[in-house]
């Protein structure tokens, strides 16, 4: 049995909107072990993003306990959580969130700028390696506005990987991409999974869940399904099966 890196105990998250309390999460418990590729599915408003923000230490729960790498996150202050995010977590967003007019390399270097252990030379080396890993070694000096959506999302994934995180979190990472490009990104995530990365992938698309090793389904802030996927589909095969595009 591999090491558990995430452990949630009865996590609750309420939002106060006026006099009304919105229960975004109503007691969620699960554990995730090293090397899992978990999809979190559910309809819009079911609490997926709220859960991911908690997992990413961007938010704190209203109730319950969250252990990341055996650290009780709720006991940490804001700055400690910043540092924790910087060292242990990589985020991939739906809308890429790259810095405008900035090269791929500099975008990827960004997380390391907030880590004093890295000098400018090491940053460059690490960023180049990360871009290599997402297949963009020929786009190091392209600016964000000179790239396609798929390329931008690859840069964003490279940025999420550059700090060697224990956990990669993706929120609707393929939501802005066409089917082919979405599959290409899934191929990349599957490759990362094979290399042993722990990935949590939020999507509302059940097709994509087939590529992951474990499926969690939320409804109204509760887990309604949590099962191991015995038949992981290969994104590569699906991609090859797509009708060829003529360039």
């Amino acid at each position, binding site marked *: 049995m591999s090491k558990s890196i995430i452990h949630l105990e009865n996590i609750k998250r309420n939002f106060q909107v006026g006099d009304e309390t919105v229960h975004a999460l109503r007691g969620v418990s699960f554990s995730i072990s090293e090397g899992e590729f978990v999809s979190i599915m559910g309809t819009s408003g079911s609490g997926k993003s709220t859960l991911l*923000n908690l997992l990413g230490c*961007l938010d704190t729960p209203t109730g319950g306990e969250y252990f990341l790498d055996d650290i009780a996150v709720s006991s940490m202050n*804001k700055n400690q959580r*910043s540092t924790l995010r*910087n*060292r242990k977590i990589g985020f991939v967003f739906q809308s890429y*969130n790259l810095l405008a007019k900035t090269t791929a390399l*500099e975008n990827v270097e960004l997380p390391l700028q*907030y880590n004093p252990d890295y000098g400018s030379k090491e940053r460059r080396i690490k960023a180049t390696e990360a871009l290599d890993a997402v297949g963009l070694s020929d786009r190091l000096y392209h600016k964000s506005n000179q790239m396609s959506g798929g390329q931008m999302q690859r840069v964003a994934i490279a*940025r999420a990987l550059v700090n060697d995180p224990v956990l990669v979190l993706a929120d609707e990472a393929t939501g802005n991409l066409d089917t082919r490009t979405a599959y290409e990104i899934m191929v990349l995530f599957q490759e990362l999974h094979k290399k042993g990365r722990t990935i949590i992938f939020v999507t509302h698309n059940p097709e994509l869940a087939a590529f992951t090793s474990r499926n969690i389904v939320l409804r109204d802030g509760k887990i309604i399904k949590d099962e191991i996927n015995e038949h992981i589909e290969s994104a590569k095969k699906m991609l090859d099966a797509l009708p060829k595009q003529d360039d």
Partner: protein
Amino acid sequence: MNIGNLIKISLRALSNNKMRAFLTMLGIIIGVASVITMLAIGQGSKKSIQAQISEMGSNMIMIQPGAGMMGGVRQSSSDMQSLKLEDYYSILNKTKYIAACSPSVNSSGQFICGGNNYPSSISGVNPEYLGIRKLTVDQGNIFTRQQVASSAKVCLVGKTIIKNLFPNGDNPLGKVIRFNKIPFTIIGTLKEKGYNSMGMDQDNIVLAPYTTIQKRVLAITYIQGIFASALSEDVTTKATSEIETLLRENHKLKTTDQNDFNVRSQQELSNMLTSTTDMMTILLACIAGISLLVGGIGIMNIMYVSVTERTREIGLRMSIGAKGSDILSQFLIEAILISFTGGIIGILIGMGASFLIKFGIKWPISIQPYSVFLSFLVCTITGVFFGWYPAKKASELDPIEAIRYE
């Protein structure tokens, strides 16, 4: 995060929006440039007045008879007879800080030469007077000690007198002019000095031995004043108090008695005049300071817009590990960089403008290091002060909301 990194990030952000950075800077540039120029104008005026005063004799000390400013009923100082030649002698012989000293007696009247006449006054002095008042002989010579001792009827004349008494351009040397029916032979002329800063014609002057004026013109034994010069500007205060003590002793005044004479140094006059220009400088600096303030508000405005515009960037930076303090420093450094660069450009432009004023309209200009330093300091403080609020706002954003910001 170290400062070098922060500066790099800020520079990148600024260069991504050069036009805006420049426009923001413009406020600071104009502010600093006008502070420097205005101070240069003010200081230049002050210096030129000081220079004119020292032209008149910077170490000069004037002693006049009469009570101090406190007296109840005051007599005209020339009517008072409290100064005697003995006072002059004792200043000459018993002081440490006095370089030269001359008695002074004056009489006004009409000068006549042939068919020309001119109303003016004649000053009875000794040869030292020239040095004390920074006068120089143009043609001919100053009268000798022998001529003083013998009350010779000789005189030196200034350019204004020559112009009016010899309108045909005759050489005045050796000519005889009459003053109150007494004939004076012109033995020298004085170099032109022009008008002084108070608008007095310094060339409307006739000098004769004081003995001649005392005996032959006024028929008095007292003197109307003493002009002295201190050894240097630094010791003028010591020199005036030395003279005061000496004269009080000479006049046998009790400690409760007021002075029956007046000692004034050129320095006091200088201080009085420069305080006026100081006021002008302060006024100009205030006007310029307001434009610097407006520049600062410009920074705050732009930084505020920039924070709103870059909300997503801030959210992203926070989600990948930037602390609030990192964001704060980033925006603060941006504001400081803008004002710093603006400050340097402003200093250069201000200096350029000052020189233009100097050579273009010949206004006296003096750029003081302190004014450069001051305006630079002020613009840096402006950057920090006005950059602080937007930066603080940025650092307090919630990363989740910021990254979702549209």
